């Protein structure tokens, strides 16, 4: 197992290297000159050039990349051009906010998806299966922007139960309870789509496993449905489910932009969008890199969990290595 994890960790290095190049180039190849905004509309070319030099934008792209990468490796994400703050100070708190929303939404989505999927798989093609799958399909395909607004309209504006915007009461002192109250609506909105996807993959995976001969044998031996589901089917059905759950979490950690915008949730997606609008290259790079890193880490965790659950994966890895 340790060997498997080490192998996977080593593989993340070229992935992250590739990501860093793409992130760097994407931010730099976009048209537009940030000094236009920084130096104001009356700025002379001399002042603009001084600014370019101060931000290192006058150097060749490879030189800029090497400098940027070496700073990143030392934990220095640079200074935001638009906000004059450390990029790390801008990006990491926002990533934590997104992580709060993403992890809680993912947990909710997994719980709903898992139980809905198992429930449906245990009664394939029955009326209740169709109802459960129909509802998840509808919710999962509802555009988050529309769904979020609908939830706010009902919960905040009509029923006056929960706050409509922000992560804490802007006039208050915050606190965990305040964050929780603000979290409920964005969490419900964000969880809808992944819950649907998880439910469908759980159902499909379970149905596939339940059609296997060893399950038929278990049934023929008179085992209870519950025992068959829990003891024999579930573990074998888990790897594709874990993979999909991991992917969903990765997407959520990337910032659920629409939900962050509708609920004014100060997450990384919102921050990245603002940085793109301001052509704030260091912030764009920092935010994108953090998102990519989160995606890689989640995928690594998924691989490790799958390898733990499924000895065949470990075995194939070993065979591939030798």
């Amino acid at each position, binding site marked *: 197992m340790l060997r498997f994890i080490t192998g996977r960790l080593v593989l993340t290095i070229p992935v992250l290297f590739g990501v860093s190049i793409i992130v760097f180039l994407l931010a730099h190849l*976009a*048209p*537009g*000159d*940030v000094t*236009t*905004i*920084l*130096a*104001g*509309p*009356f*700025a*002379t*070319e001399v*002042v603009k050039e*001084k*600014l370019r030099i101060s931000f290192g934008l006058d150097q060749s792209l490879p030189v800029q990349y090497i400098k940027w990468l070496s700073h990143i490796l030392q934990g220095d994400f640079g200074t935001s051009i*638009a*906000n*004059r*703050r450390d990029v790390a100070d*801008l990006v990491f708190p*926002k990533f934590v906010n997104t992580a709060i929303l993403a992890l809680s939404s993912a947990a909710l989505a997994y719980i709903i998806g898992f139980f809905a999927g198992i429930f449906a798989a245990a009664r394939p093609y029955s009326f209740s299966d169709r109802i459960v799958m129909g509802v998840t399909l509808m919710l999962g395909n509802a555009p988050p922007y529309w769904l979020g*607004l609908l939830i*706010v*309209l*009902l919960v*905040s*504006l*009509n*029923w*006056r*139960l*929960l*706050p*409509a*915007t*922000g*992560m804490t*009461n*802007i*006039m*208050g002192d915050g606190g965990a*309870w*305040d964050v929780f*109250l603000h979290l409920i609506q964005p969490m419900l909105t964000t969880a809808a789509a992944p819950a649907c996807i998880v439910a469908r993959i759980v159902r499909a995976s379970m149905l596939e496993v339940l059609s296997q001969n060893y399950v038929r044998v278990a049934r023929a031996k008179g085992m209870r449905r519950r025992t068959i589901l829990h003891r024999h089917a579930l573990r074998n059905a888990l790897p594709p489910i874990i993979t999909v759950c991991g992917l969903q979490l990765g997407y959520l950690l990337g910032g659920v932009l629409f939900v962050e*915008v*509708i*609920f*004014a949730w*100060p997450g990384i997606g*919102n*921050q990245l969008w*603002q940085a793109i*609008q*301001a*052509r704030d290259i260091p912030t764009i790079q920092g935010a994108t890199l953090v998102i990519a890193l989160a995606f890689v880490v989640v995928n690594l965790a998924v691989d490790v969990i799958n390898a733990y659950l499924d000895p065949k994966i470990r075995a194939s890895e070993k065979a591939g290595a030798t």
Partner: protein
Amino acid sequence: MKQFSLKRLLGAAAIAGSLAFASGAATEAKAEGGTFVWGISSEMSILDPHVACGWLTTNAIHSIFEGLVMLDLSDPNAKNASLKPAIAESWTVNDDGTVYTFAIRENVRFHDGTSVDADVVKWNYDRFMDTGAEHAFDQAQAYLGYYTRWIKSVEVTGPMTVKITLNETNYEWLQMGVVACGMPMIASPTAIQAMGNEQFALTPVGTGPFKFVEREQNIKLVMDRNEDYWGENAKIERLIFQPLPDQATRLNAIRAGEVSMIMEAPWEELENLKNEGFTVTTNENIPSIWLLFFNHKNPIMQDVRVRKAINMAIDRDAIADGILKGTGRPEMGMLSPGTYAYKPGYAPIKYDPEGAKALLAEAGYPDGLELDFDIYEYGYNEVWEKSIQRDLKKVGINAKLNKIEWITYMGKWLQGMPPELQMNEIGWGWTIPFWTQVMTRCDYHPPNGFNVGWYCNPEVDKLFDEAVKQKDKAKAAALYQQANDIIIGQDFGYAVKFTYKNPLVLSPSVKHFVNPPANWYDFSIIELE
């Protein structure tokens, strides 16, 4: 507000009850707190007045800082905002309008406790105009070039007296110091020296009615009442600007009672908001106009008949009433409202698509023509630009809209139009008609100004030169209007579309808010019930 019938069902749930209690407690705290929260449409820039730009940022800057003079924004009925004393208690101007002597107000203190005197004023002016000064800030000098290019010298003539001498007479110069891009406000030298330019822009220290408390990027800017203010203290205790970039989010926030005011509400929602008890305030004299620049270096656009035809083809009423739902007003002149030179109802031509077609045929385009039109991706401009595109199509002009992301657009716009481009656009204005000069003068072609369509008429420039020398505003206004009649009525050098009445939505608890003839507000006069 409408009540949903399911409320009763949900009200029965115990958990809902507890949540409602928690939510209600937050609302109660607001009523007692005297906190005014403004839901703004985008994040602001940094808060160093000498290098800050944009109307939203100016709202914060004008709350935290003061210049020698400020705009009086307390009169909702004023046709244009006049100057009022601020750091300078009074000032005198010599006979030919070239020497301004300012008496600095006694007992003005920065938020860090240090005092303002003539040396402090000089130190600030050196920061943004003296390249040889130890604390010279080149970015500030770039931003404030439009203001400092008129200044010959700044002298301290007494402990509380500053004399500023201009290169030539310009009676609009003083008010140039209160426009929204690079502002000659007085900042605390002690704070700048202690923090450096970068940090000062994040934790600004001025003398204004509000002092900076904290800023969380994309979350909030918090300012508290300055209890040691030299003038009358602000009525509210706390002022918060909260970026809420999405229109629907801003609407939700004000309807949920989480903010006190929002900007840029959807036009079609304004009537509903009024019916729900919110105050919707507008101003007829907002100093800005939305206009099309024609490229006078492009052979097609060099023909005045084409420019006139485009002016005749645009249905301005359709934009003002149909799209903006009455929050806009058709305009044709290059003199913006909210300035002393504005001429209401100026309209040298009427909407006349048939006449436009005939003119185009006369100009040699009986089968129509194709035009390239740069537009920016920011705000809601695409809606009316598409309306203009349809109007032009009706007269045979096929306008290709090149939609460009804002920063890229600004970079291109500031360089002036390349020869192959026919039109681009902007919406802008100052509280003084000098803005029209910046947009139209021959010597304000890029990179020296914003005449990005390369319009040039020396006769117009002569009238402008005369206008700034007039102490009597009525005489100056007449000269400006004469120039305007040449720029538009004769040359059709631009196509001005409309002016915006700036609707703001206020919660019923807000009292005495004034939507002034400016693009920023005086928050010190607001009261909360």
